[in-house]
């Protein structure tokens, strides 16, 4: 077993071969300078449409939640914790299923979340769902904690100065990725 690859064969240090190599390198550079298109997405003006099933920030449907606490149990980063409705101290005993009413509901701390999507996959009622938002940034750590009420209000929204063009990446044999505008 074991074949030897032939890419980049090694001639000696022949000056003529070297010169040919220099010419090929410069020529390739020129080809890309002139003929090959860019692959950049101009982010704040153009946004890549994420595929279905992308594991973005979470959407929480409180009406479906049965407060089972499985999401908090499985969260590898302890980002999801179960909180008492309001005013009650939340967070501690994150892994436990609440024993007595009032029911606890999950809240998420994006300062910890690693977007593994285990919570969504284990949620028995579908109360958790992935959104396609994954480009938020925050100025304060406190803003990243979403208690159940804020969590239920939807994923964080990101603001654009100008309405962005939405593009769907499509594989292209010649250009690698090309982009198709989405409606």
């Amino acid at each position, binding site marked *: 077993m074991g074949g*030897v690859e032939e890419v980049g064969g090694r001639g000696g240090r022949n000056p003529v071969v070297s010169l040919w*190599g220099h010419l090929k390198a410069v020529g390739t550079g020129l080809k890309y300078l002139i003929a090959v298109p860019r692959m950049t997405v101009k982010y704040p003006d153009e946004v890549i449409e994420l*595929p279905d099933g992308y594991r973005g920030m979470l959407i929480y449907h409180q009406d479906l939640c049965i407060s089972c606490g499985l999401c908090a149990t499985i969260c590898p980063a302890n980002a999801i914790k179960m909180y008492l409705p309001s005013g009650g101290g939340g967070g501690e005993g994150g892994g436990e299923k609440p024993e007595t009413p009032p029911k606890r509901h999950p809240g998420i701390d994006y300062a910890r979340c690693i977007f*593994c999507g285990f919570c969504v996959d284990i949620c028995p009622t579908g109360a958790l769902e992935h959104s396609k938002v994954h480009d938020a940034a925050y100025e304060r750590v406190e803003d990243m904690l979403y208690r159940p009420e804020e969590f239920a209000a939807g994923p964080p929204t990101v603001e654009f100065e100008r309405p962005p063009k939405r593009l769907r990446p499509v*594989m292209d044999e010649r250009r690698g990725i090309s982009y198709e505008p989405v409606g």
Partner: protein
Amino acid sequence: MSGAGSGERTLELLIGPQHPASGHMRLVAEVDGDVVVRLRPDIGYVHRTVEKIAETKTYLQTIPLIERPPLADTANHNLGYVMAVERLLGVEAPPRAQWLRTLLAEMNRIHSHLYGLGIHGIMLGSSTAFMWAFGDREIMIEMAKRLTGARITYSYMIPGGVRRDLPPGFAEEMEKALRYLERRLPDYDRIFFSNPVTRARLEGVGVLTREDAIRLGVVGPNLRASGVAYDVRRARPYAAYPELDFQVVTRSEGDSMARMLVRVGEIRESIRMIRQILARMPDGPILAERYAKMIPPKWRDYVRETGRIKFPAILASLRPPKGAEAVSRVEAARGEAVFYLVSDGGPRPYRMRMVTPSLRNVVLFSHLTRGCRVADIPAIYGSLDYFPPEADR
């Protein structure tokens, strides 16, 4: 500057951890003029105690943890860990899941090798090689994103199977992506691999002989570049590898150039393998029957329609039998990775040991750089495709 008066004539250079070419480590180089007398890698800057905190996380929670150290190469490590857990639990993933795992592992190998080539390029000063490799890496990331829902940290393989089935139209899109990569490799060759400057910088630099490679326990492409055709995929086949036709790429020179070209050859082999996988993918379930039947009944239609597994609650607290031990070996992109798990019957591993390829290759720093020039340090470093977080864990 160790004192000129004391008769010493060497200068100690501290390269890193803040240095354009050090990455997350420090290289303590003792140089005599332009010649490196001794180079000592100072690792541990990214020691994140993975093995210890694995003991505080359940078996499933450990999957994302395993993925963080080798960030460009998550799927292969994920596969290794999951195989060890499956051996603990006595579960076997169904064939389709095995093929899907192999698919993601090979896609990941391509993007990890492109990552390595890009870093090697920037270490030699070729910003174009870096930009191209990182740009083309996006192709594989984009495809993996469609398959798994994440760019790099897939957490795709779970004990007993995989989390998602192939999305519709995946094979056609992948074929285009592979053709594109094949078209691009000759351009890489012209501008970087056989650029006379690159060749002058890499050929004959950092030569690792076959004997030394075996003696030092080097793994992965670095070993194969020294002429040893050892590959776990061939030596101890796992997942779908027994049924795939592939070559173990080797070269005999053992220098930095050979290490780079072995990676290029492996990209070509991975392209071939992905084609085979997509053509011959068996049908069937993607999660072992033992867990599939525990999926809540209301989700079964959803799982069938979307191909996305909803976890049965049991996955949150897998309990292997007390005293069980398991070892698994995989050929990750940077070399052989070994996972060792001990169970005490609880939901968390009693001990998780993770031997990563970079950890086994770190010995090469002091070995290969003896007597080289200062400018060869990045050339050799880059050729090793060494990823400090992976070694430090």
